[in-house]
């Protein structure tokens, strides 16, 4: 249990998706102008990451891995390695999962769809989702750990985007040099926030 807590906290603070791996930067920059929308996107990312990471784990272990096909078709498939299909499979799983969730939410909870719905299509092309799946494979996690990692990474993204949105809302009232307005100051802010997150590096939980 300790390991899992450790993994979650580590993926939130130390291996933060945005500040350490630069993943999900596009939506991080584009959707962080208002706190409410940032909040909606953040929650959607947590949700999708928590489910796509274990889904992709199952696909990798049961279909794509070298020798995984043996249990279905017999010994002659022991050397078959479908690793090269990894990217295609993962992105297909993510795209269809997002589409599926969108349909379910639209059917059962129109209010939630109203607040979350517009962000779901955006999420397919959010690098942090695909990145989460690829990192999870590289780190050789188990199924439970993969779920925890997905959840932790999602929370990390949520924290990052909400923090930036809150700062940018306050920033409206300040006098920023002309050339820095908008994207420039946002990047400098992100740099400072990343620096703040660096302080968590030595920590063990």
């Amino acid at each position, binding site marked *: 249990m300790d390991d899992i807590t450790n993994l979650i906290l580590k993926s939130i603070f130390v291996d933060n998706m945005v*500040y*350490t*791996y*630069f*993943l*999900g*930067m*596009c939506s991080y*920059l*584009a959707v962080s102008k208002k706190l409410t929308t940032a909040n909606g996107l953040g929650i959607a990312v947590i949700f999708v990451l928590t489910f796509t990471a274990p889904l992709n784990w199952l696909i990798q272990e049961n279909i794509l891995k070298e020798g995984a096909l043996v249990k279905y078709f017999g010994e002659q498939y022991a050397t078959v390695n479908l690793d*090269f*299909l*990894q*990217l*295609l499979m993962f*992105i*297909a799983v993510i*795209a269809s999962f997002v589409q599926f969730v969108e349909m379910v939410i639209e059917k059962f909870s129109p209010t939630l769809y109203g607040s979350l719905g517009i962000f779901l*299509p955006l999420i*397919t*092309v*959010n*690098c942090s*989702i*695909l*990145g989460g799946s*690829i*990192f999870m494979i*590289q780190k050789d996690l188990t199924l439970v750990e993969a779920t925890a990692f997905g959840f932790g990474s999602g929370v990390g993204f949520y924290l990052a985007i909400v923090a930036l949105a809150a700062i940018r809302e306050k920033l409206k009232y300040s006098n920023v*040099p*002309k*050339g*820095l*307005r*908008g*994207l*420039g*100051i*946002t*990047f*400098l802010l*992100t*740099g400072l926030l*990343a*620096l703040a997150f*660096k302080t968590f590096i030595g920590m063990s939980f």
Partner: protein
Amino acid sequence: MSTEVLDKKIKKEKISEPLLSKRRKKIISDPFNDDNPITIQVLGICSALAVTIKMEPTIIMAISVVFVMIFSSLITSVIRNYIPTRVRIIVQMAIIASLVTLVSEFLRAFNYEMFKTLGAFVGLIITNCIVMGRLEAYAMGNKPYDSILDAFGNAIGYGWIIITVAFFRELLGSGSVLGFKVFEFIGWENFPTNGLMVDSVGAFIIIGLIIWIQRSISGYVEN
């Protein structure tokens, strides 16, 4: 009657348009500065910054993006009239993912060291918004040749920014350029390297400064 004549005239002009007409040169040159994908359109920041610690992987990354963008634009543009609008995202994803797989397998076969250095970030070109963004914005509605030019221009506009970032990060962070120890060469033995530049913090700050300089020169102001 008059519109017919006009139509004919336009058609004729289109046929006789030179391979690199003024309009087409503008398609290529706009993304360098005035319409740069990273600093103005805010596309493609995601995965690419992570490889900018050293110049060499950055250049490989830029070349990969040029390749993926040109061919995905070409394919999308050729079949654009046959793609149903409702499933276009998935079709584009499939095209991009196949091309990226090609790049990644090529690197694994011919430059395994580089493949390991770049790691997951080659695969992440798929979700690099710049590819998808240009397909949606340009290749879905324009002819193949123009789409290739647009893709090329944007990929180069993207490439020069990340290579500039990599240059400063490698110079200040490791004291070298393309692996060549510059400061030792000019006789500055113990050049104090800056750990922040090797870290992700350096990339954010450098790109923020590049945007500031670029916008101060061009006078572009965001509201």
